[in-house]
């Protein structure tokens, strides 16, 4: 589907003196990482398809500072946070949606203390709301009956107690939702959080993502559904490492929805 995407910026809205319904915070992975960009585009396709008026910051967006904060560089984190808050407040942003649980958590929980107060939703929560209000229609499509297991991102699940929104979206696809041994509150990390994405792991018996992939493989899924670009990378690598790429797809929840709608 090579239909071009409609991605307005906050600057263009502001130029017309208008406000979008919601700001889509794309995040660094969603902007630059080849795999994560597909998630970004899938989300935009759905927003375009059902006519949600959204905008992005584009070149005015910068890293939320999450990796800096979790790595212990509070200075860098707060510099990033305050710069972003200045931009967001200048545009009088009220609602934010993002497909990255790390951006989601940081803006929602940690920006308020630095002067940034917004309603922040993870894209699965946002889509769930659209579903509930009837704007988004979801049907099984190509994933009907497929075995799908959802890998809880730490910063959506444990960190913010959201376990149901992604699962409800998946159930709408008429899939066979199966749970891994460690799920929800006890969900096992993919290994990318806390700055680990940007460094080599410490010495050990194996990599965390391999460990998690093994747990996923125990339930024989057709698809491992993710809700985080970093989890997605880690699980994709894990599946590749196990030479299972032909049998197990790793897809973001929004990619499953977009694919089901043939967007």
């Amino acid at each position, binding site marked *: 589907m*090579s239909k071009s995407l409609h*991605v307005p*910026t906050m600057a263009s809205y502001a130029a017309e003196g208008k406000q979008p319904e919601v700001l889509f915070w*794309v995040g*660094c992975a969603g*902007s*630059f*990482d080849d795999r994560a*960009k597909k998630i970004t*585009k899938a989300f935009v396709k759905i927003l375009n398809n059902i006519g949600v008026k959204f905008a*992005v910051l*584009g*070149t005015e*967006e910068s*890293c939320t500072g999450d*990796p*800096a*904060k*979790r*790595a*212990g*560089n*509070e*200075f*860098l984190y*707060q*510099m*990033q946070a*305050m710069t972003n808050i200045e931009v967001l407040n200048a545009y009088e942003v009220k609602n934010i949606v993002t497909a990255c649980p790390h951006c989601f*958590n940081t803006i*929602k*929980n*940690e920006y308020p*203390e*630095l002067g940034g107060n917004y309603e922040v939703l993870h894209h699965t929560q946002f889509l769930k709301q659209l579903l509930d209000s009837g704007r988004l229609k979801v049907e099984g499509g190509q994933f009907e009956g497929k075995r799908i297991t959802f890998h809880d991102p*730490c*910063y959506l699940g*444990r*960190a*913010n107690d959201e376990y149901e929104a992604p699962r409800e979206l998946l159930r709408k696809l008429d899939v066979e939702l199966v749970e891994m041994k460690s799920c929800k*509150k*006890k*969900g*096992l*990390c993919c*290994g990318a*959080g*806390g*700055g*680990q*994405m*940007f*460094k080599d792991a*410490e*010495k*050990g*018996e194996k*990599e*965390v993502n391999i*460990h998690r992939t093994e747990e996923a493989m125990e339930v024989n899924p057709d698809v491992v559904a993710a809700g985080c670009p970093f989890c997605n990378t880690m699980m994709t690598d894990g599946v590749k490492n196990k030479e299972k790429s032909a049998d197990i797809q790793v897809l973001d929840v929004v990619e499953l929805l977009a694919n089901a709608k043939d967007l």
Partner: protein
Amino acid sequence: MENVLEYLPQVLFILALAYAVYFFTRNVNRLKRNINLGKEQNRSDRKKERLKKMMRVALGQSKMVVKPIAGFLHVIVYVGFVIINIEVLEIIIDGVLGTHRIFSFIGPVYDVLIASFEILAFLVLAGVILFWTRRNITRIKRFFAREMTAWPKNDANNILYFEVVLMLLFLTMNAADHQLQINGAAHYVQAGAFPISKFLLPLFDNMTNEALIVIERAAWWLHILGILFFLNYLYYSKHLHILLAFPNVYFSRLDPKGKFNNNETVTQEVKTMMDPNADPYAEPENDGDVPDKFGANDVTDLSWFQLLSAYTCTECGRCTSECPANQTGKLLSPRKIMMDTRDRLEEISNHLNKGESMDDGKSLLGDYISKEELWACTTCNACVEACPVGIDPLSIIMEMRQYLMMEKSDASPELNNAMSNIENNAAPWPYNQQDRLKWAEETN
């Protein structure tokens, strides 16, 4: 002379009690002093919510039962110990006043009470034996980490042995008393019901009342002295959790787990840096408040709550068994973080007890916790979620990382690269911020 001898047991009892209370108070005061070495942290807000959480998690054991077998056994032992303590109250009054079973005047209710203490004592005994089996025969993995050797290992078993001995003494005391009641011995009022200890009666066949009195008195004394000893063992043991679990849960974090502490000192610095009107050469306004360091490398840099948590930790290892780093063979163990914090605090405490300086050239970071452990953390919060008593090992890891990063610039080159990328290009990878919207032009 005879009169004096008559009061001797009472005098001895009061002396033993007074000494136990004195020693316990001294240790409680040391505990308070040590916890107060920690930094200020406001946890006096949202009192109702805190009280509710304490009722649910500490009193209600809601997180213990996440692991059903251990949880069930723990609830039995916990309920047993709390309720049997009503009996200890009677024993203490009897000991001070020289009476025997002073509560027996309440009649049938007393019978019910004694009977239920006996049943609970039996259940505690069974629970403790199963606990011991799990720890020593089944060898559950989380009890065999590298931090679970020497004292921590012995301590865990000591507690179990102690509880077995106390319960056996309690039941022996009751059985002998019961036999004396049956024999109609003087001073042994007809009181209580003995559904468990009655099975011990055959042991006393053909014994004289004198011998029975010796057994009853010996069991009575050993039981109460054992309890007073146990009370004072707490401070040196993981068993301290029976007291500290309550305040620790009460003062634990209520915010979402993803919300990490905001470092206020850094906020002030960053605000000044970003203020276009700030005079870069100005003297700091209140230089008395300038912190000596960012982050933590010793226990005195941590908050009082984190130190309270270190004393609360019961070394169950649920945190460590959920930790993704630990599961994949890395050095990090959240339980060890808490134990190290406590051990280092106790080291400082010993200096203070001797009137020495706290500064011994050692620190928590380096002498106890290694960088390798700290850098293995994925900040996933599994340890925080797993803790049955509201401990947050992650917050300690984070503050020590802050120290490594901001005071020592001590991170791997890869991580430092990501940091400078964020600083220079506003993303952890070396892409240009001006290219941030390029994806929107791509068609696939």
